[in-house]
């Protein structure tokens, strides 16, 4: 037991060290690179906490896509004059804030230590009701059946965030495509990677979705992987960014929540409650929702990373 405990102690110490370093590092770009490493280490912590689904999500979205987003921003802002930069707080202020955060940490640590010993858990209830959802993976059961309203609202959050990002574009670029003009001449190494990796990525993404019903995996993780592959292809110039006003793109974006909503409303008639699934068809319905959800999540995550339209619309 002590070997595992030692490994966990080292892992936790490393995660804290990298986190502290990203805060105190002087140069923003280095801090963001540190953050990406931190995201991957965190995925390892999630594996140690026996949560493979969350480890996948953390690696794919927390470390990966968020890392790409922040790296892109750091690269664009490198060397430009800071904007909306408050004045650097003096030593006294830093001390006060440090003490405040210390108190918060101490309170949290005390609460964690004082948590009730027979930890209150809903695992037995979830296990008991899992069979009626027809899904093997309990987390997919919670996301798609028990707390389906959370997942539905969350997909509407993604769509609203995308509308918010698109609404930041100057008016004359509305209708155009996000991302800068065609890359000057992408490196052939990148083009090679962009030709080799996406097929593998797509296969793994679809596998993640399919296996998500019974094993760790799921639509969000698969969607994030597909988004990564799409971004890679676009960075290498192999794929062009879709125009914002393209009807097909809008339908793919809205299809995720719309199908979920339609099946939920059908629950009124077929299974006596909103977002309830008729007993026999629970699994196929959930799979349909997950497939459409994955496409919508892949498109939304990719477009969120690419940002508002930056090119005039081609008439």
């Amino acid at each position, binding site marked *: 037991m002590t070997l595992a405990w030692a490994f966990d102690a080292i892992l936790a110490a490393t995660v804290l060290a990298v986190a502290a370093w990203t805060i105190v590092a002087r140069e923003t770009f280095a801090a963001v690179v540190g953050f990406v490493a931190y995201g991957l280490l965190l995925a390892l912590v999630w594996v140690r906490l026996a949560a493979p689904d969350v480890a996948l999500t953390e690696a794919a979205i927390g470390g990966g896509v968020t890392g790409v987003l922040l790296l892109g921003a750091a690269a664009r802002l490198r060397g430009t004059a800071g904007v909306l930069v408050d004045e650097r707080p003096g030593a006294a202020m830093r001390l006060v804030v440090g003490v405040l955060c210390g108190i918060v940490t101490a309170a949290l640590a005390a609460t964690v230590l004082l948590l009730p010993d027979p930890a209150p858990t809903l695992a037995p209830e979830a296990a008991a009701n899992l069979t009626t959802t027809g899904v093997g993976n309990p987390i997919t059961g919670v996301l798609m059946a028990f707390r389906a309203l959370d997942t539905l609202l969350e997909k509407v959050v993604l769509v609203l965030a995308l509308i918010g990002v698109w609404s930041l574009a100057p008016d004359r670029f509305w209708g155009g495509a996000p991302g800068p003009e065609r890359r000057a001449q992408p490196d052939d190494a*990148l083009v090679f990677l962009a030709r080799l*990796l996406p097929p593998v990525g797509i296969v793994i993404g679809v596998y993640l979705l399919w296996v998500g019903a019974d094993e760790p995996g799921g639509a969000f993780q698969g969607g994030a992987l597909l988004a990564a592959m799409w971004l890679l292809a676009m960075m290498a110039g192999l794929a062009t960014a879709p125009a914002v006003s393209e009807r097909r793109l809008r339908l793919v974006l809205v299809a995720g929540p719309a199908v979920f909503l339609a099946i939920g409303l059908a629950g009124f008639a077929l299974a006596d409650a909103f977002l309830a699934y008729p007993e026999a068809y629970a699994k196929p319905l959930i799979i349909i929702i997950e497939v459409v959800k994955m496409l919508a999540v892949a498109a939304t995550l990719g477009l969120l990373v690419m940002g508002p339209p930056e090119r005039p619309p081609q008439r």
Partner: protein
Amino acid sequence: MSLALDIFSVLAISAGAFFFLAGTVGLLRFPDALTRLHALTKADNLGLGLVVLGLLPRADGALGALKLVVVWVLVLVAAGTVSQLIARVAQRVGPSP
């Protein structure tokens, strides 16, 4: 038989660890970006290969072993491409410290 496999695993993994160490030392000691890149990519890929080799006998069944090898190949491809990209940027920017 399993004893021999265990010894083999221990040897391979420790060799892998040694190469990782060499790569890190190279990263710290070498003067400029290009040589560091060289050290890092070569040593770490070899180190990972040895670790994977060491884990193969312990993997659960052929599928597990195949997954390990696929992981190694993907890392090889990614590391190779990324190091070329960084090298090209390093050349354009000039030998920064």
